[in-house]
């Protein structure tokens, strides 16, 4: 077992074994899961891209690193990790993973939880623990990476992760038009993003330039645009893809943007109130309660926050 690098050891010591504590990244999604109890000490995860191995398609990065810094490091080698938070200059890798919300390119590149290969995290007992391994394929033991992704730091604080990278597509092009969102989605082969705001449909195509041009040619009435519409951030609803389109169709055009084929609806302030998500059934709620009891019996990690 390798000794932990000093910087991880310092983070471990800072979190310590007792007292309420919270971990802050860029605080760009700080409201998710509700407010943290005011008594909690604030700690920050270590920063820096430790190593990027393009031929392995992996990157080891500390949790406090901003997504922009990670993007820059990977970009110089022609790769990327599809985290895509709204504010990459401030959002941190650990924050994006702990919140667990994926960016609009998940349609093509998968949700953030699928890029996590290894996690090193500090437990409620103040131990530095590991799950997974730094290889692109691994079923050695239970999946701690997926457990921690989206757990809002209530089971452990991410210190360092190994993520799977992808080669950057040679070409990318945004198009927009009046096409029906489902038909547009159905007519394309694995588009990166399809968005609909009730009136217009946006499409992101990525890949070989000739393929991007060919796919674009299948979209009558679409024209190239600089980028996606701004994604409203007053609310966010997660529904099955068909249900998301159906529900959003009843909202006023322009008050929402729905990720077609995914089911995330981004709501503006003027949109109708979001339907309350169905709570977990009692059996799943009991598993979640036992998880919290096993991983953080004293309730010291991010007290008050509920994933």
């Amino acid at each position, binding site marked *: *077992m390798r000794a932990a690098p000093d910087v991880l050891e310092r983070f471990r010591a800072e979190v310590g074994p007792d007292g309420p504590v919270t971990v802050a990244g860029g605080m760009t999604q700080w409201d998710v899961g509700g407010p943290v109890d005011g008594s909690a000490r604030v700690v920050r995860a270590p920063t820096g891209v430790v190593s990027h*191995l*393009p*031929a*392995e*398609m992996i990157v080891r990065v500390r949790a406090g690193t901003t997504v922009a810094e990670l993007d820059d490091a990977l970009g110089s080698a022609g*790769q990327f990790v599809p985290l895509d938070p709204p504010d990459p200059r401030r959002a941190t890798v650990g924050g994006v993973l702990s919140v*667990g919300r*994926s960016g609009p390119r998940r349609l093509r590149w*998968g*949700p953030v939880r699928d890029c996590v290969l290894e996690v090193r995290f500090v*437990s409620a007992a103040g*131990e530095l*623990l*590991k*799950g997974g*391994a*730094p*290889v*692109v*394929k*691994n*079923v*050695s*033991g*239970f*999946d*701690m990476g997926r*457990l921690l*992704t989206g757990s809002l730091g209530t089971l452990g604080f991410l210190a360092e992760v190994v993520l799977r990278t992808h*080669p950057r597509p040679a070409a990318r092009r945004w198009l927009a038009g009046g096409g029906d969102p*489902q038909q547009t989605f159905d007519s394309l*082969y*694995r588009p990166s993003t399809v968005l609909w705001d009730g009136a217009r449909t946006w499409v992101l195509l990525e*890949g*070989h330039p*000739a*393929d991007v041009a*060919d796919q674009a040619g299948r979209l009558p009435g679409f024209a190239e645009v600089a980028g996606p519409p701004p994604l409203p951030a007053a609310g*966010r609803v*997660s529904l*099955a*893809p*068909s249900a998301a389109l159906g529900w959003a169709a009843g909202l006023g055009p322009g008050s929402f943007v729905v*990720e077609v*084929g*995914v*089911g995330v609806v981004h709501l503006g302030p003027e949109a109708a109130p979001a339907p309350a*998500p169905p709570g*977990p*059934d009692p*059996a*799943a709620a009991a*598993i*979640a309660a036992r*998880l919290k*009891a*096993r*991983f953080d019996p004293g309730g010291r990690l991010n007290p008050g926050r509920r*994933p």
Partner: protein
Amino acid sequence: MQRARSEDLAGELAAALGPEAVRTGSMERSLYARDASMIQGEAAVVCLCASRADVQAAVDIARRHGRAVVPRGAGTGLAGGAVPVSEDGAPPVVLVTTRMNRVVEVDPAQRVAWVQPGVLNLDLSRQVAPLGLHFAPDPSSQQACSIGGNVANNSGGPHCLAYGVTSAHVLAVEVVLSDGSVTTLGGLDPEPAGYDLRGAFVGSEGTMGIATAVAVRLTPLPPVIRTLLVGFATAEDAAATVSAVIAAGVVPAALEMMDQRITAAVEDFVHAGFPTDAAAVLLVEVDGLASGVEAAAETVARLARDGGATSVRVAADAAERDLIWKGRKSAFGAVARLAPNYYLHDTVVPRTRLADILNAVYAVADRNQVAVMNVFHAGDGNLHPLFLFDRRVPGALERVHAAAEEVLRICLDAGGALSGEHGIGLEKRDYMPLLFSEADLVAQDGLRDAFDPMRLFNPLKVLPSGSRCGDLQAVPAGAWV
């Protein structure tokens, strides 16, 4: 809890599930006492469940009788994950899901299917192919293995290089828990509230619950596919080409490697025209839209020639491609003709280390006087050394175990993992401390415990017995089960 006798247990199960679904004959108990590994357990009763209600009833009855429940799909697992063993030595109830084999619902608009756990992997892909869709994980055993087993083992397959392993293709799982309750983990919505219990469950090897329905993501069939078969004079050249392809920004749909020994065995078996004079053969498949595929295929061919390829063959049509894949996927059948027994290993290494590790594997095999062949998922560094032996020869099995352990240690030293796709089961359980600290393992045990605090399901699997919180003791490292 007073443990009742096996006859009472079987009687109650037969009353609940119907006598035909409950087997106690010595022949059947012995069949279900093992899976595709070399490990033998003992089954008290075998339940062939046909519905969620059957699973719930069997779990309730087993729990009341104080018997462990070992879930089982098609039994193709290679790590002993479905071998019935228990902490107290009382033979478990083996709960078989193969009769739950219906594709319940296919929704092409959302590209999702709800399937029962006993649906066979390849049957699902065949059934949705007319819709232009498929289930991307494709283990070599895909004609025989079930979706439930794929979920339990987070199975891979050649095409997981580009498409990801099973967990990336499972949206929701309906699960029977050890208290007999039913819950649905995950959902068709992209961001279900709460912890990702679905993600924790996939790959839990039957220790957390029993899947009774699975919502799988279906992936569009690629419009264009190119399959290349490339021969090399040395395994090093082949391995270096693997790294060169990935470093060039090409992620093939599949990137498989076969050494000369296995290539010869396969060619004898399927006559697919594999280059038997090559020291190593790469099977490279690129798929997607036409221009990207052509460009990627050209890049692969160029890098292969630059890397010393002695032959480059591109499949001319679907029939030729199918024949090449038939050769790859028949490798284990071909080997069965060469020796009475084989042990198929499964480890992962950084792909840039493939050439060194392969040489090390040959050296280990020579040192232990064991025949070895290699056919594996080179693109993701997932090695599958195949050791041939004859169990009847005294000492043969022991030499295979010694060689397998040495290979495992070499792979971990190189920064790899214990298993890429077969799982830990019983077979690699006691090696977990080579990869994880005691505290890491206690955390994993906490995850399992949150799902099954009664420890009813698949005891003694995945985690060494010392992993339980409050029960910390040194685990004898290197004890091969």
